């Protein structure tokens, strides 16, 4: 649509010109004519494009939020249980069996894991006896398995990068090995969390993960099962996303 593209390019120039002109006028200079960009007079130059100086902000209120490592898990757990997340304690060797037992007890028939996930192998080994739940792998583009994903998968399982102590919450980073919809479409979502990997705050986490330099196409924080209060402010769970969120605590991680 070349016409559409032209309209949009014109809109871009006019919007940016208006913003620049407003700021130039404020600095005591006449606004530059539309469509031209003469170098602004020295001394009042706006910061060069794309490199505004950092905001002079006091982040002490964020940095002050720290907890001793031993308290972080308790705090995360308290915050997340308050919004109906459930916790399952397991070990590095025993988590696949613990997860399968938990799901079987709840009547789940199918469990989906990413084909490239480090969880797929241990789960397959633990399920070699053929008992429920059956392990299904997310191994092809969503277009080919959307129907079954929406109708026949009872649970999805993923890893996470770690947790957040201040507010509760798990940081997930979907990847080719662990697709985005695994943590969204199945009614039950299980996440493995190593209790040693809990940051104090989201602010600390995004800085330590180095995402300001290179950020994944999709990353997210999940703090509980899907919920809404849109009807009379009455809390109801499981409106669109998972109805249950199960945090599987595995000291040392999945290995």
């Amino acid at each position, binding site marked *: 649509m070349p016409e*559409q593209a032209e309209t*949009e390019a014109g*809109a871009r120039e*006019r*919007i*940016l010109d*208006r*913003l620049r002109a407003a*700021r130039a*006028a*404020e600095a005591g200079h006449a606004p530059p004519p539309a469509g031209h960009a003469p170098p602004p007079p020295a001394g009042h130059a*706006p*910061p060069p*494009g*794309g490199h*505004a100086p*950092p*905001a*002079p*902000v*006091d*982040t*002490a*209120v*964020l940095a002050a939020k720290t907890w001793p490592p031993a308290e972080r898990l308790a705090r995360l757990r308290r915050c997340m249980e308050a*919004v109906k997340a459930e916790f399952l304690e397991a070990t590095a060797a025993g988590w696949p069996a613990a997860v399968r037992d938990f799901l079987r007890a709840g009547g789940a028939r199918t469990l989906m894991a990413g084909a490239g996930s480090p969880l797929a192998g241990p789960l397959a080994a633990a399920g070699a006896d053929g008992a429920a739940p059956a392990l299904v792998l*997310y191994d092809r583009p*969503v*277009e080919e398995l959307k129907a079954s994903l*929406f109708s026949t998968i009872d649970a999805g399982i993923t890893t996470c990068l770690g947790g957040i102590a*201040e*507010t*509760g*919450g798990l940081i997930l980073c979907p990847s*080719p090995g662990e*697709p*985005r*919809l695994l943590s*969204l479409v199945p009614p039950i979502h299980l996440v493995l969390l190593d209790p040693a990997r809990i940051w104090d705050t*989201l602010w600390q986490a*995004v800085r330590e993960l180095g995402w*300001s330099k290179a*950020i994944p*196409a*999709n*990353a*997210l924080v999940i*703090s509980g*099962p*899907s919920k*809404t*209060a*849109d*009807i009379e*402010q009455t809390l*109801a769970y*499981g*409106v*669109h*996303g998972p109805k249950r969120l199960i945090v599987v605590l595995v000291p040392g991680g999945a290995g």
Partner: protein
Amino acid sequence: MAAEPVPGSGPLDFHASAAAALADPQIRANFRRAMDGLMAKRAALFADPAEWQALRALGAAIRAHALDHLPELLVRLEERCRANGIQVHWAESTGDANAAVLAILRAHGATRVVKGKSMVSEEMHLNDYLAEHGVESLESDLGEYVVQLDHETPSHIIMPAIHKNGRQIARLFGEKIRGAQYTEDVDALTAMARRVLRQKFEEADAGMSGVNVAVAETGTLVLVENEGNGRMSTHVPPLHIALMGIEKVVERLADVPPLLALLCRSATGQTITTYTNLISGPRGAGELDGPHEVHLVILDNGRSRIFADPELRATLRCIRCGACMNHCPVYTRIGGHAYQAVYPGPIGKILIPQTEGLKTRRELPQASSLCGACAEVCPVAIPITELLLRLRREAAHPEPGSPVLQAGEARAPWEERAWAAWRRVFASPRLYRLASRLATRCRWLPPPRLGPLAAWTRVRSAPRPARRSLHELARRRGVPDA
């Protein structure tokens, strides 16, 4: 319930719609209950005043800094988004934005769209526009779904269906959802919506969403939500279109956590929402899901005019938390629809007159007791009271070169003549004595009920002059110079 005036349909008459809302006990009860709950939940999370002040100062500084560098940050955002594979579109007006969205949908042959919540799309009246062009655009946030099902508009920017109680929603679902059994059970009603919408998510050709914060340094669109419908709309369909106003950008990723902390606590009294989504690109190499294309539409719609005035620019700091309306004594009593505007409550009273003009919207800045509760709870410290007063002044006595749309539209010649006469009387001792003598001697006359004076005395008791003026009483007691 009385039919609500819908923005864009029917004449704008704030006095009439406010009076109608005040007379509706259902509206009064529904809002009172909801606002009391929201205020209590917010207050519990900002219990430490020192922390609140520090966090708020940080939030205000981040937003002010972003606005100070707005053109550079928008260019950088565009650059980073393009590098990430997100296609960027610019629109000056809501009409242009609608056309941009339709062009993208047509290029993909998309006719079934699921939407996450977006106030910018409400500004655009996007659903109506798409319906006229043969595209089904379905709201998937539960509150927005309720409102759309009843052909209404949101009455609150965070809780769109807050004007309805459970029984009203139960009746609506019973009538409009095929195969639905009437129930007032909230879990059952939620399950009904889940059943309908899950199928829509699965079948949709495209998904749309708003943007809570856009990060210039990484080209990231941040979306917060509790239901999962935002993730469904942005990750299940093969195409995702995000809509944002030009003011939504911040410079750094590290700016996001404090803003979200303020937003979530102020909006719904939560420290964090269920989902915090960082979207920085479409489906990547090797990925098995996610949209093949992500488009970002950046809308101006009058914001660059607001930006032109250094004082009014603070309006653009807004992060759309809704705390100002939750704490507003006017909003709590009349509800959101009475404002006949996309943004109701205090933020609407300063934003709408600037985008739509003071000619049709001059009543909005007047619809305030100036109690200042809104400014006190604003998480980015927008001086709402000062801006209300500024717009009141602009309506009658515009500053030279005022950037405000239709400034001076409320100027009334009779009023100026009346004040000129008042000035003459008070500047002349002789006239002043004569006037006070006249007023005290004729105090038995009923207050005039003519024109503007009638409007004044309709809601206020008219002052009655004393028997004798203070000057006369003082003279009688022998006070010198009286």
